[in-house]
């Protein structure tokens, strides 16, 4: 049976056999860096194409179908174009911050990759405060956006960045509370522990209605956090032309664009881990035979399947709903999502204490 765990173990064994431990660790670091960068590039290409195809099919169109079979290489062609394009820096812009901003946004994506469990025992860093780490790091991306908006010396960019700041700071809360419900149920902040706790069923099934509510809250909050429609106020096309990245072009723009999709992947991966059991196959109570069959599907396939399902859900939102207004956006958070998530957390705490979950 195909397993990523086997590959990593054999690579590690070989490295420790050939080199001294420090050297082997350094080599492993380099391998991890290369792998994560290539994963980034690959995900960017795949997700942009997926978005365009999903959008096209929802909008009764065909979508890209000229470059390569079924338009598979469309995003590669787009990337080549963006690399070759001149990256303009506007006059009077703060050049240092302007150039730094896309990298800050990218860096956040990279950092968030660390604690995610891609498959069984296939994780870069199984940190024991994984969930906390994710909450803390993911809110850093707003700094990059604010930087971009401020440094561009453009009024549209500034407005977009300010909107984004207000938005991410508020929606962090309900995303955090939604994550906390699962932490309360599991009793651990470690992502591998959370996955293990779902061995006999995913939290979305085991956690009764509160887990379902938490999932809905989580999806809404992370859609807002990643600046996706219907919460794409930071780049509201019809209002602010392109919001915080109005002045960006060429590869700097591509980094923002890539970061958006990487962020979607990461929040969906975390959502899949928390609510759908990460790499854990679908197990139903005592159906031993069924569980056994499900185990035959590799854990990485389970993980990717769940993540891409959530990504599809977020894309589905984008191509269905109109955009909210900025005050309605904050109303939604403070008047609806936050009270509901607080109440939901209380409910979950009661359930967890009384042991009502499966």
């Amino acid at each position: 049976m195909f397993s990523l765990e086997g590959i990593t173990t054999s690579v590690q064994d070989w490295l420790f056999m050939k080199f001294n431990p420090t050297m082997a660790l350094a080599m492993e670091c380099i391998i991890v860096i290369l792998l994560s960068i290539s994963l980034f590039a690959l995900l960017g290409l795949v997700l942009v194409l997926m978005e365009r195809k999903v959008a096209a099919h929802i909008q009764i169109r065909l979508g890209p179908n000229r470059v390569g079979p079924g338009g598979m290489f469309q995003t590669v062609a787009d990337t080549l174009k963006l690399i070759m394009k001149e990256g303009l820096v506007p006059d009077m812009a703060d050049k240092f911050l302007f150039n730094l901003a896309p990298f800050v946004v990218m860096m956040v994506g990279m950092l968030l990759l660390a604690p995610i469990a891609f498959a069984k025992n296939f994780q870069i860093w199984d940190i024991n405060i994984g969930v906390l780490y994710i909450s803390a790091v993911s809110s850093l991306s707003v700094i990059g956006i604010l930087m971009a908006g401020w440094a561009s010396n453009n009024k549209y960019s500034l407005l977009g960045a300010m909107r984004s700041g207000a938005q991410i700071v508020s929606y962090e809360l309900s995303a955090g509370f939604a994550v906390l419900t699962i932490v309360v149920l599991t009793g651990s902040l470690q992502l591998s522990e959370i996955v293990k706790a779902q061995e006999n069923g995913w939290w979305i099934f085991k956690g009764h209605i509160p887990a379902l509510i938490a999932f809905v809250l989580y999806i809404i909050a992370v859609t807002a956090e990643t600046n996706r429609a219907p919460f794409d106020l930071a780049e509201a096309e019809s209002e602010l032309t392109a919001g915080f990245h109005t002045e960006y072009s060429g590869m700097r723009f591509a980094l923002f664009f890539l970061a958006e999709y990487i962020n979607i992947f990461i929040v969906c991966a975390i959502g899949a881990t928390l609510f759908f059991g990460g790499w854990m196959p679908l197990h139903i109570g005592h159906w031993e035979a069924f569980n056994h069959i499900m185990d035959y599907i590799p854990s990485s396939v389970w993980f990717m399947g769940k993540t891409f399902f959530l990504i599809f859900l977020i894309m589905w939102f984008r191509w269905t709903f109109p955009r909210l207004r900025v005050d309605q956006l904050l109303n939604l958070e403070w008047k609806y999502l936050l009270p509901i998530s607080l109440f939901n957390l209380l409910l979950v705490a009661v359930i967890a204490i009384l042991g009502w979950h499966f």
Partner: protein
Amino acid sequence: MYNQTEIIKDTSELGADGELVINMGPQHPATHGVLHLVVTLNGETIKKIEPHLGFIHRSIEKMCESLTYRQFIYVTSRMDYLSSHINNLGCALLVEKGMQIEVPDRAKYIRVILSELTRIASHELWLGAMAMDLGAFTPFFYAFREREMITDIMEDTCGARLTMNYIVPGGLMYDLHPDFQKKVKAFITQFKSKVTEYEDLVTNNIIFQSRTKGVGILSAEDAISYGCTGPVARASGVSCDIRKIYPYEVYDKVEFEEVIETAGDSFARYIVRVKEMNQSIRIIEQLIDNIPEGDFVAKTKNVLKLPKGEFYSRVETARGEFGVYVVSEGGTTPHRIKFRSPGFSNLSVLNHIAAGGMIGDLMASMGTLDLVIPDIDR
């Protein structure tokens, strides 16, 4: 070339008290053309909007003065290109009125059917574009699918999809296409089955409702004093449908309701247009099977000469009252011509209804005013 220190000194662009002046347009995704809005902001709140016009001014009125009464009609298609057919009709009506040409019944019926089809096509485009202004991209494609059927009908019968020039003084340029009735009926069936889609996607959507309800309120008094017509005024409770007040062609023979809402906000303007599409379908249904046989054009002289005097005719386009005013000296060309375009008056209320709102409200207000910039600039 200027150096950087000079730019810093030039603070005239910056408003007082932390006001932010941004130029929306002439190249902006939400202005649907080359409208230039100078928006004074205080944070997200709009303090003042100043529309700057003239980016697509082609001096159509002056051009028309050098064209004969047969020729000047085609130019009017280029003003409000979404209701070009109705514009043509307004001009043809003026010439017919001035020369007392009796138009055959068949031509009258066909003109009305085509006008209503044009109205539906225009409203469909507006619906898609407005949803797009509010951030929903998908309804645009669904609306265009139905609009495409109308443009196909136009292409079959009139020979063009947008600037038809099918109406000539005295009737029509040529007779209907044999498939016309069949295709129109197919369109009506398709339209009726798809109307619920807009309700699900747009009308009943909670986000759409909260974006438009209570936004950009225009009172009936203001609508009258700014000279608003069409769906914009009718959404404020002003009865101003030219088809009802001064019926032309066969509008006095068909049954339809003048859609009037009283709220005066963006949502009311939206509802008025959606209901108007249904009324247009109702008019077409009454006429499509009853097109009388006969000539499609009246016998007219080769050279048309309007008698000396002043003439005015008006029609109800998809955007409101379109008026043509001609001063004739008795020659083959108009001495002076003036078009009263609905878009210009409707645009003038923008500052009134959007100031005090947010940037997002401006998009909702502007979207529901249904501006066509070439109609405003002419």
